[in-house]
């Protein structure tokens, strides 16, 4: 078989047009340059798309040819085909399989993989680190959004008693009463077990014994137990690495977009998980879920009345709230 090629002697940038002959006795012959060597002494580069293929000879000479198909035939004939990567790249089935492997891997890392890693990391991370991180976050919030609580001692006592029962003496959980007109009726949990409850939420309670607030606290404990903050952080990190690798660009894209996507799309799943946890806790404490359902209803009503005046106004427009009310009602006896 004859193929056209360009020859470079490796000493200068001079280019020579040559014809390479692959003879049946496994020899490579270039008559114009007195080359006649066994094919095993020639290093033939693996195929890469339709780029010119390099053939390296032992004396430093290199030839380049774009007759890739002919070279493949020669290699096949002498049983020398070895480019596995090109085989995969040129097969439609295997390319599709590669797409599926990649998508599957990314999906796994963002779901089960992230949960598994989060648990693993959470068990390695010393409690002191979690505490430190949470403390910094809480301090930041304290400075800008949180003010001392104006609840009466009686109110605090009742809620604190509920809380103590809920956490069964586990010392990492701490309840903080705060007032926050900026945040409005709300409660949130930090990974350390610090739970913040706003006066504004307590004000909406319709139960004198604050069993609805207990429901909210149980929900917050759910966030801590299920390590939601950690899972968000890890998923953000993992997707950052993935986006960075795929786009070859560890920059803004990789660092901001996952945060945004994950915060908005995963919070639904996490809220539901925490709701399920709350239902279980309430059941164990023999308290009906109807109280928390009622609290959610008044939240919904309040936001409808207030119009756009607080950030809770979005509560009303969101269909999810009614779904969550239904969820709690379905467990109320």
């Amino acid at each position: 078989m004859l193929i056209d090629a360009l020859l470079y002697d490796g000493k200068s940038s001079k280019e020579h047009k040559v014809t390479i002959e692959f003879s049946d006795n496994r020899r490579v012959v270039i008559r114009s340059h007195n080359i006649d060597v066994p094919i095993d002494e020639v290093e033939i580069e693996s195929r890469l798309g339709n780029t010119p293929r390099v053939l390296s000879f032992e004396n430093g000479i290199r030839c380049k040819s774009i007759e890739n198909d002919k070279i493949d035939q020669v290699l096949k004939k002498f049983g020398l085909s070895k480019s596995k990567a090109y085989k995969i790249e040129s097969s439609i089935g295997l390319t599709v399989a590669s797409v599926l492997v990649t998508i599957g891997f990314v999906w796994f890392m963002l779901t089960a993989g992230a949960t598994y890693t989060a648990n693993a990391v959470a068990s390695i991370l010393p409690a002191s680190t979690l505490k430190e991180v949470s403390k910094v976050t809480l301090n930041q919030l304290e400075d800008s959004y949180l003010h001392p609580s104006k609840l009466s001692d009686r109110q605090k006592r009742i809620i604190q008693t509920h809380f103590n029962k809920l956490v069964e003496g586990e010392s990492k959980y701490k309840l903080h009463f705060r007032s926050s007109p900026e945040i409005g009726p709300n409660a949130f949990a930090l990974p350390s077990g610090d739970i913040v409850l706003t006066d504004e939420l307590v004000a909406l309670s319709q139960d004198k014994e604050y069993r609805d607030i207990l429901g909210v606290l149980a929900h917050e404990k759910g966030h801590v137990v299920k390590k939601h903050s950690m899972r968000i952080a890890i998923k953000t990190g993992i997707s950052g690495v993935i986006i960075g690798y795929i786009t070859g660009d560890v920059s803004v894209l990789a660092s901001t977009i996952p945060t945004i996507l994950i915060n908005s799309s995963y919070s639904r799943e996490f809220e539901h998980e925490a709701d399920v946890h709350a239902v279980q806790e309430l059941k164990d404490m023999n308290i009906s879920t109807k109280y928390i359902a009622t609290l959610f209803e008044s939240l919904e009503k309040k936001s409808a009345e207030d119009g756009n005046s607080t950030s809770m106004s979005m509560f009303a427009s969101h269909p999810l709230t009614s779904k969550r009310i239904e969820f709690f009602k379905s467990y109320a006896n």
Partner: protein
Amino acid sequence: MEKEFKYFEFKGNAKEYFRIWIVNIALTILTFGIYSAWAKVRTNRYMYANTYLNGSNFEYNADPVRILIGRIIVVSIYILFIVFAQHLMMFEVAAGIAIVAFLAMPWLVRQAVSFKLRNTSYRHVPFRYVGKIRDFYAFFLLHGLLNIFTLFLAFPFSYVRFKELILRHSHYGQGEFNFKGKVQSVYEIYFSIIGWIMLIAIAVTMVVAFLSGIALESSGMGIEEVLSSGMVTGEDVSVDDATTPMATGVASLLMILIYLPLIFGEKGLSDAYFSNYVRNHTTLEGAPFRGDINVFKLAWISISNVFVILFSLGLLYPWSKIRYLKYKLEHTSFACHDYEQFESFGYEKGSTVGEEMMDFFDIDIGL
């Protein structure tokens, strides 16, 4: 003799590269990252081999095994650092690792420059780098201090000196590169970039404000609420309410619409300005290079690529990469009267640690 400029040609195509890219990723996943070294070589080989000048193409000659060794060394150092700093809480050891890595930086940068050049060849004649390690230490010490004291106002000056350090010690065969650039032009480039970015920022903000005005009107939300809800979830806190998903959705969309054109517009603009600048002041054995990249065209390619990547969930990344590279290369030219005059000094081997360190921390030396 009138010089004839010849444009570089890029023959890579998105379909071919897509297959190489996706197989690279899949094999990297299946081999727990080991294949990544081969993936890097295949990607670079593909890009170099498709780059033509005067009818001949370039060659990428790096050995994947050496790249793998470099990667293993870099990742091991990084893991050691993390383990000491965050798990064993042995901050002295972690600080020691960081200081050694910091002190090695100039040496590593030189290694990375040298690695890139000596693994590139054209017509079977490799490029090479002869800059001295002590010049790199002198450069980083001097210009590091200078920029700290001038609050980086001297950066354009340092930029020109760095390009001199790189290009004046680069060779193709026996052929010597030279770079003569004015510092003043670099200041002008920075002013242009800042000016255009401010204009883009104003334009984008106006469009976004107009669009979000319509969107919020119909959903009955005020803009402060949307933004503030985005801020609260931005904290490391599980905010308890059902309102967040939709609100953060809208807020994040706003952020994306504002930030991405700015950041990637800036990337495209600077790349175009600086590529042109370097090309137009560089010669090889007296033969000049020329860059006539349109800065707005490249900024547009950069911005639109990001949205294409985003909306295709990454799958059109190969298309966008080819598009960008093709435009840049095909607006680069070189005027040489004799392509056969270069004599090879042979291929050298050397450490890959510098190259992989720069790769790992995503530092672009920009050759």
